[in-house]
């Protein structure tokens, strides 16, 4: 059965680009434009196998989103990858403390992203 990936980014271009590439690679893809809508979707019953989120977003940034997701009982162990332009070590550490599984820096080639997804998602 195809795995489901949940993408969260305020950039329409990023969402389209990633969704297209991931669906072509055989994944189901769900998207949200910001952290607030992402939490709403998760609480409404969405059960992704992997979450990929941007950091710099309006209303709720990625770090806060990761903390909130980890606080939900069903999503304590779901892999969460960040995909962001933030490259400094301090921010990475913040993400790690919040509960991120990995830190990815934009721009990323689809080939590299798929390798990482294989590492974090068993059975892919």
């Amino acid at each position, binding site marked *: 059965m195809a795995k489901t990936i949940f993408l969260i*980014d305020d*950039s*329409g*271009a*990023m969402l*389209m*680009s*990633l969704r*297209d*590439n991931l669906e*072509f690679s055989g994944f189901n893809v769900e998207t949200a434009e910001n952290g607030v809508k992402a939490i709403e979707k998760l609480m409404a019953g969405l059960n992704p196998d992997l979450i990929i989120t941007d950091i*710099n977003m309006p209303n709720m940034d990625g770090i806060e989103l990761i903390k909130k997701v980890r606080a939900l009982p069903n999503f304590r162990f779901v892999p969460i990858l960040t995909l962001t*332009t*933030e*490259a*400094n*070590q*301090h*921010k*990475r550490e913040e993400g*790690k403390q919040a509960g*991120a*599984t*990995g*830190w*990815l*820096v*934009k*721009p*990323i*080639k*689809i*080939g*590299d992203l798929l390798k*990482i997804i294989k*590492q*974090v998602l068993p059975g892919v």
Partner: protein
Amino acid sequence: MTTQSQNNTHVQRSTKLIVFLVSLMSVFVPVSVVILLSPYFEIQLNNQKEILFLVLAIIVALGMQWSLLKIIPAKREILSPEEQVHATNEKLRYIFNVITRHIENATEFKNEGVNIIENPTDKLAAILVQRSETIADSVQTLISTLQFGSHDTLENIKQSLTPLIDQTLDAISQYLTVSENIENHLCNQISTTQKLLINLRSELAAFVLNQSQQKTPPNLSTGIIETAELIDIYLKIEEAIDQQLAVVANDTNEAGMTLVTNMSTLRDSATGLVHYISESLSQISGMENEVNDCVQFIVNTGHFIKDIPSKIQADIQSIQKASSVIDSLGYLVDSIKDIGFQTDILAVNAAIQASHAGEAGLGFKIVADEVRKLALNSSKAAELIESGLNTARQTIHEGLKFKFLDEIMVQMDEAANIMDAVKRLDASHEDMRIYYGMLFSAINQNNLKLANDISDILDSIQYQDIVRQRIERIQFVMQQRNELLQQFIAELESSGGQMTDDFNIKMNTILNEYSISESSHHSSLSLNNGGTQSPQFELF
């Protein structure tokens, strides 16, 4: 007027008085000496000459006074504090007007930038993704269709793929035009800002120098220096922004080049695929013709074989008809024979009667003899006809037998030909099966290549998000800086130079936070900001 002002006026009047007296003395003293000492030097002066001398002296004195007053610099005048504040405020107001214009231009750039940069590239990115999806779907359909080997569908797909590629090229071309506009806009903005910076710095330097040459009150001097420092930090922030704008311009250029390269590769792959399909279609067409020929031959032969029984049946019916006609002729011959026999008997009777009639029956005897001959000939004719009919019957039967054999031989030959045709057909099908297998494999490889090319293009679109975020950070810092500057201007004007808040520290904080923020984000696509480059990805 205040005391200070009265003193200033007093000073002005006393200066003029002194100058007047000096000039008067410098003229009248020598003239008076000449007049008084004229008798001793035997100089004859009458009243007219003395009056003339006095008039000349007054004129010269006035002229000297005027000249002296002109030479003394007017700047030696000392202004009152209010006049000083007013003059300073005028100058400050001039500089602030220049900066306000700059802020307005920057705001306009911000608004224009959003329209130029964000909206069209978002729309075009959507179009690009949609086109890429359509191309990918088309090729997927192609792969599925090949499994059924439909010639028409291949042709349709070939015809639809080329315009799809062309439309995607158009979308890319528009995207690149927008990118070029962004680049040009940014380069113009940077160039304009740099000129403005140079002008501002010159004016500021000149203004500060000018102020230092005047004896301004201390609080005004502090206010001016603070203003100068603040504006200097403001301009440093501007320079930091310009650096990032240069990065944006460079990223836009790099991403545009990458897109063009990727699209060229995609076009080459797709063109190769279309060309390959065209070649394959003509080869498949040849193979299909051969298969069709075989099939047609088998069909025709089948029809022929199917028709043979009915043909034979028709022949048999014709022959049976002929036989029944012959048989009916046989009955006719029997009738003729009967008639001949009866006629002979009649003739014999007639001859007997004629002999009984004597000479009167001689004529009748002759007739009877003739009739008898006639009967004999009729019998002979009937026999001949019967013989002929028998021969005909025999011939027909014999001929039918051989004809039937001929038909069988033909059937057997045709059967042998059909077997050959079926074997050829089978071989053609095998060839086609192998050929379609190769075609499927080749197109599958091409499809994978196309998929990779499309992925590369989709990856390139990510730069748009990176640039957008950089522009947003620039907009944020410009807003912070402009708000602080406007607060500063308001306070400076109301306080007359006695500032209570430390605006320089706040402006420096904005500059430092912006610099740290930029260094923490991923550097340009190709430029290295210096410092440690963090890894592209890291699993915790």
